[in-house]
């Protein structure tokens, strides 16, 4: 057997994939896919506009697309729609950040202390199963008709998926990596900072992505149950006025907030986790 043994190394592709991430590129779409998606949207809007009136469905049941648009304009001027949207966005973001921070902190703390984890895991499991949004009326009884209940419900729903994901990652850290660090005399804290924390990032981000979608649910429930601002409030208000278009629009804005939050998290994830091979 003859062999060109000397290890001639190929050049690294130096242009490290600093990919430009438009939202479309982020979810891996080409121009063809985009055209198809747009076509579906056009068909759906046309059906929405013309089918309900043709079937004689009243605008109090299903307002048409154009009616919703008109109501949207009215809401902007009459009802301070953007103010309410900002209020909801602010609460969602604050609740998401605080809930994530507490969730991650508890996840790491429990991961570092097996005793605490064993002691507390039944309670965590119970709380995780409890429907968090059902706490909303309770928070209103405690904190009144302010932004606080919405914030607390948001924090609560975001907290658990992040805690569970982080804890899971701490428990599945590669033991051999930890042993390697120990052979190099690293302190417990250095092992956490240099091995466990970075190893947990993919899981943390998985939790953050789930949390970002839950945050919108949390804030909506909080505002639905009580308070006089936010998109959740507009939904109850519209319901009281039999203004179906207003409810539609508020739901639409909530969805936009949800997508925006998710996109920010996803964008951050591709940045932070650039060292993971992507196919």
């Amino acid at each position, binding site marked *: 057997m003859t062999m060109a043994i000397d290890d001639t190394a190929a050049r690294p592709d130096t242009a490290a994939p600093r990919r430009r991430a438009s939202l479309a590129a982020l979810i891996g779409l080409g121009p063809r896919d985009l055209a198809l998606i747009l076509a579906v949207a056009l068909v759906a809007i046309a059906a929405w506009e013309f089918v309900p009136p043709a079937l004689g469905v009243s605008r109090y049941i299903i307002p048409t697309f154009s009616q919703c648009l008109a109501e949207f304009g009215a809401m902007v001027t009459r009802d301070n729609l953007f103010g309410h949207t900002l209020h909801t966005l602010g609460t969602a973001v604050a609740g998401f950040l605080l809930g994530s921070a507490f969730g991650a902190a508890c996840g790491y703390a429990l991961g570092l202390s097996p005793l605490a984890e064993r002691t507390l895991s039944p309670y965590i499991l119970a709380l995780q199963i409890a429907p968090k949004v059902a706490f909303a009326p309770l928070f209103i009884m405690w904190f009144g008709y302010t932004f606080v209940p919405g914030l607390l419900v948001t924090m609560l729903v975001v907290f658990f998926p992040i805690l569970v994901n982080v804890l899971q990652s701490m428990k599945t850290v590669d033991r051999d990596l930890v042993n*390697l660090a120990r052979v190099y005399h690293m302190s417990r804290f250095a092992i956490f900072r240099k091995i466990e924390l970075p190893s947990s990032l993919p899981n943390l981000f998985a939790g953050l992505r789930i949390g970002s979608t839950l945050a919108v649910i949390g804030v909506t429930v909080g505002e639905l149950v009580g308070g006089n601002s936010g998109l959740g409030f507009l939904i109850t208000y519209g319901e009281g006025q039999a203004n179906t278009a207003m409810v539609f629009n508020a739901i639409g804005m909530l969805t936009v907030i949800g997508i925006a939050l998710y996109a920010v998290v996803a964008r951050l994830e591709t940045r932070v986790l650039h060292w993971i091979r992507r196919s």
Partner: protein
Amino acid sequence: MTPKLELRGVAKAFGEKGSPTRVTAVRDLSFTVAAGELVAVVGPSGCGKSTILNMVSGLYGPSEGAVLIDGAEVKGPRSEVGFMLQKDLLLPWRTVIENVEFGLETRKLPKAERRRIARAELRRIRLEEFADSYPYQLSGGMRQRVALARTLAISPELVLLDEPFSALDAQTKLVLQKSFSRTLSESGLSCLLITHDLQEAVIMSDRVVVLSGRPGTVVDTFAVDLPHRDDPLARSTLPATQAYVKRLFDTLHIAEGAA
């Protein structure tokens, strides 16, 4: 002269004393590695080879007997011992050069000095131009070479290798055996090489220690009296090599039958 490494009547059992699930991995194990010597350890799967390596690296102590480095008993991880597994254990979030620096970070060295050492190690394994790449951009063989660079960066006196080539394809394996052998003999390190591959044991080592099935104990040990320790390919073409491999094969066969 005191040997670099000595195992003196070592036994290791896992699990509670008296428990039915207690497993004795190795027992009554004694052998040495002289300074500058490369000793290969072969034995059937599960006979406690990795256990030996973990005890020598100070991750846990033996149940009986003692492990001595330079005549002093091993009580915990020691800074003159380098350690490398079948898995490359590169940190995927660090660049190649940052990975090579990993073991130096517990030394009191200025950052620039760490960089300099790491760069020199990368140059030695000829991967300098990959310094700023991430592990996922490297092939398996390149990653294993980076792992060797990380191991050698701390200037160890004793290097422990646990099947470092067994995850590689046949051709990469030959390339790496050659480059490892050259690097290890250039630096005059003492080395314990654990392997499944009998041919590898003969072509890379000065001496071979053969273990029985679990609980592992030494059933044979012999010097490999062949030239070219720094060039396993040259060695593999020598007719005498096959005789050593045959001897190993026979011994292991008998050892397994007896276990």
